[in-house]
């Protein structure tokens, strides 16, 4: 059974003069368990709106979203539970840090879930470990930390509620390349251990290609494509019409292949490129 499904989901608001402005238009998809789903799209394509719909922060104006087969909005009083099952980190989640210590900030979610002190403690320590936060900073003020540490603290706060689905809205923007890699590795390890669904919104096509099992391509509120990264990034002309691009490695390998007439394979990961180049060189020596 799919973990999350969207059936004809639209979200619009009244733009005045009787016109409705659509942020999300008639989307249909289903996400199976244990997958990392990438979401890409131009600014204003509806990525963040979709994230908020999935987490029950806003209600679809049409259609329904099913979590484990059950409509999110079937029972309005139950929507708080949905926030705990579908965790969402906003862009720049560190702007929402507010407690005196890193520990208290991570503990905020589990405490509000009504867990015992001991359970809260276990959750906090586990979440901190997943997010790569060292024990010695748990008692420091979150405002004294570096950008990368703040980001990890904020992400740990969501991991601590132990969500079935974790939505990360541009988790690496503004981080240096090392910080970026560390966050991605933590997310990947967390996913491998938890086997939960992760929805990963990013503008960095290289990260989407390396991380994701499937990719959603959004444009003006429409779901244009929902396929494997390989299929999505084979369509470079469609992507560029949508203001997006393919990973750098895909671009490089495509031109090299064309010029040398060696292969027509789409390459989306660095390691595949290396294997491909070695294969081309060896093949010719034989």
């Amino acid at each position: 059974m799919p973990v999350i499904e969207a059936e004809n989901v639209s979200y619009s608001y009244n733009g005045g003069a009787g016109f409705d402005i659509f942020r999300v238009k008639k989307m249909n998809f289903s996400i199976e368990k244990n997958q990392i789903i990438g979401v890409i799209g131009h600014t204003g394509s509806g990525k963040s709106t979709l994230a908020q719909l999935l987490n029950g922060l806003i209600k679809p104006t049409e259609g329904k979203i099913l979590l484990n087969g059950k409509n999110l909005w079937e029972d309005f009083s139950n929507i708080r539970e949905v926030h705990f099952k579908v965790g969402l980190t906003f862009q720049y989640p560190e702007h929402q840090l507010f407690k005196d210590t890193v520990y208290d900030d991570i503990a905020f979610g589990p405490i509000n879930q009504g867990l015992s002190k001991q359970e809260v403690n276990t959750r906090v320590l586990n979440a901190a470990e997943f997010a790569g936060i060292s024990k010695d900073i748990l008692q420091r003020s979150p405002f004294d930390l570096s950008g990368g540490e703040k980001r990890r603290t904020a992400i740990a706060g969501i991991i601590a509620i132990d969500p079935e689905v974790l939505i990360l809205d541009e988790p690496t923007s503004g981080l240096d390349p090392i910080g970026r890699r560390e966050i991605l590795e933590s997310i990947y390890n967390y996913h491998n251990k938890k086997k939960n669904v992760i929805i990963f919104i990013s503008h960095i096509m290289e990260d989407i290609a390396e991380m994701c099992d499937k990719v959603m391509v959004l444009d003006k509120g429409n779901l244009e494509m929902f396929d494997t990264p390989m299929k999505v990034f084979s369509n470079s002309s469609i992507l560029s019409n949508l203001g997006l691009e393919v990973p750098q490695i895909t671009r490089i390998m495509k031109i090299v292949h064309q010029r040398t007439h060696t292969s027509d394979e789409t390459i989306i990961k660095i390691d595949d490129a290396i294997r491909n180049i070695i294969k081309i060189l060896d093949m010719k020596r034989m």
Partner: protein
Amino acid sequence: MFGIDKLISVKNVSFSAYSEEKGEKQRFILKNINLEIAKGEFVAILGKNGSGKSTLVKHFNGILLPSEGKVLVNGIDTKDEDKLCEIRQKVGMVFQNPDNQIISAIVEEDVAFGPENLGLDREEIIRRVESALKAVGMYDLRKHSTDMLSGGQKQRVAIAGVFAMLPSCIVLDEPTSMLDPQGRKEVINTLVKLNKESGTTIVLITHNTDELVYADRIIAMEAGSIFKDTSLKEIILNIEYSKALGLNSSQCLDLIYKLKGKGIDIPITIDENECINNLAKMIEEDKMCR
């Protein structure tokens, strides 16, 4: 007298922040920085999160004042409160988040905010707004509502707002990190244009390796100090520096290093086309040897 080409001069600057009440120990965010930036330069500053990049550039127009040492802008000490307006007019800032920097509902009104506050004549304000909007390629959208713009467009409006003050220097703290690929290109092309055509000094903080290509000079920071002050070429040719600084975000560079690791020798570059040429050449030559 002070040399005319030195726009910003940082002399022995240290900066520390700590709370005595909480009994914290003094921690230095910047340690003994010496730096000069000349008119017309395009300087990129890079380094890890927490290395002091943002703290350093906030000294360039007196948002922060040094705990030790001094910063001169056009020969004026940033500690001179009476001259602060003059300094901020010379050195303008653009920040990361496009939404935090737009204050008016209409594009041209937003750009006019700075010049209005300089107390200029109406005609002069109109002239400056017009030329600033043309410089960033937003003139056609001058009557548009600011909240309908894309991130890249908003950043360009923010740049126009600074440019309308006729600054000698624009400092940008990761202006592209919240933008999509197209928005990133728009902003960077605008900066290159302002630098080349108007001679505006650009100081750009960035993590994006692609954007470093345009800089004449790279200042690499680590733990509050300047680690390297050099050209891009020198930095990327040295694998240790770039790895250490977390500069290596380009797949092009990653590919080259990994091929080298497999014993395939190929020249180091971050220029995509050069990398393609080198790879194609290598495969062709291999064909010939066969």
